[in-house]
């Protein structure tokens, strides 16, 4: 069977000798919702960067949709990334573009047709509940709204996997809940989700698969898991 994401014996040592990940073996199936938890510096960000091919593993193989991404040429990387949507803690929206333009931008970059863009962007903005703020600029929005825009941008090209690095790190608890519910909805539509987070309450309440990293090692992999501080 083809796994959505598979890591085999993956280690990552940064130049200078800092060991970020040690011998990670993990499989994530299509349509799964996975929380990536662990203290700061445990290797969560590196884990996501490896999937995103921002970093290459020092050892081991990584497969996405059956394709070995450690063997990709630099020229092929953009096409891998088009199958992945990414959401950051700091939103990373373009301040001078409107909400609509920020989302449309993601489609322009992959050379979608203007007709497609006009059809798809309002749809996706409706889905994240921002139809009424289409012409606002990011600084006119609340943090939660900005993260919804970022999510809309990540989703607009129909990615197989959405990766989120601390998506609620800058948000208050109520807003964080709304974002998580949105993630849940996206997941129900069949998109695989990997969310790195510190939000204990959210993880405990959602009861999804939990991967726990500590000092670069995968110390726990639990279906319908909870956050738990220590092991």
């Amino acid at each position, binding site marked *: 069977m083809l796994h959505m994401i598979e890591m085999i014996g993956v280690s990552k040592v940064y130049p200078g000798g800092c060991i970020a990940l040690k011998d990670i073996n993990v499989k994530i199936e299509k349509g799964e919702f996975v929380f990536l938890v662990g203290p700061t510096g445990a290797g969560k960000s590196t884990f996501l960067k490896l999937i*995103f091919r*921002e970093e290459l593993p020092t050892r081991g193989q990584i497969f996405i949709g059956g394709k070995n991404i450690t063997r990709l040429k*630099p*020229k092929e990387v*953009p*096409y*891998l*990334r*088009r199958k*992945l949507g*990414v959401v950051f803690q700091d939103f*990373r929206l*373009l301040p*001078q573009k409107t909400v609509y333009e920020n989302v449309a*931008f*993601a489609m*322009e*970059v*992959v*050379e979608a*047709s*203007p007709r497609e863009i006009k059809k798809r962007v309002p749809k996706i903005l409706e889905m994240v509940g921002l139809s009424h703020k289409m012409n606002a600029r990011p600084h006119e929005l609340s943090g939660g709204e900005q993260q919804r825009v970022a999510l809309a*941008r990540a989703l607009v*090209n129909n990615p197989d996997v959405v990766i989120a690095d601390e998506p609620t790190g800058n948000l208050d608890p109520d807003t964080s809940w709304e974002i998580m519910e949105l993630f849940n909805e996206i997941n129900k539509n069949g998109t695989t989700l990997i969310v790195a987070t510190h939000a204990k309450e959210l993880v405990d309440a959602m009861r999804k698969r939990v991967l726990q990293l500590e000092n670069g090692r995968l110390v726990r992999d639990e279906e319908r898991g909870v956050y738990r501080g220590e092991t």
Partner: protein
Amino acid sequence: MKLRTIRYFFKEAFVNLFRNGWMSLASIGAVASALIIFGSFLIISINFDYIAKNVESQVEITAYLEDSVNQLVLNQVEYKIKSIDGVKEVVFVSKEQALEEFKKQVGEELLEGIENPLPHSFRIKVETPQEVAAVAEKIQQIPGVEEVKYGKGVVEKLFKITHWVRLVGFAIMVIFAIISIFIISNTIRITVFARRREINIMKYIGATDWFVRWPFLIEGMLLGFTGSLIAIVLLTVGYNYLYEMVKLNIPIISLLPIEEFYDYSLGLLTIGTFLGAFGSGFSIKKFLRV
């Protein structure tokens, strides 16, 4: 590449150009000043070259013949001179013609009633000015030739001067070309740096490197093009003024005609545009590594 993508590149380039208004003006200013300095030295250099070539081409050999020569010897001498390698043109000047010319120079009255003291002579032009000394030496050997003059010493000095002027002019040109590249790539680096977030996001979304690069390249080319256009206009106006000034006040020196400078301005325009593209491509490289 799709047509609407190309349109997108140009749209982005223009939007960025105006959005970074002051930065763009600074870049254009840098390109313009660099190219004005570069262009000024270019003008000086090509003019030195032009003047040097002019003087060089005026260098000629005069071979004075013995008084006793008859028509037969005259023909032989002419034939022998013509068969020397490097001789381009031989003109015979008879005693009478020489006297006429001399009269014109010093005035008719002074020479009234005097028997013509001037000998027959040949005026010889050579292919390359550097051959003058060698050719003169050979002409001296021909029987019937009494004396050969070619401004010995003066010619050699002139060659030395033009040689150095060319060398120094070229060196200064190269130095200023490097300075121009540095200024341009630095200013564009600042614009690219101001938009590193945008580049970063584009790369995360899955933009290819060339998709990211093109708008910046076009922006750089537009900056370089505009800057060099300004430089060319100012240089042309300035050179025109200088040309007229020199023509009026120092008529002996003839500068390179302004029309010939137009060819060089096309070159400057190309250089400016290329420098802009080069500078921005250079500056963006680092930010593409995501």
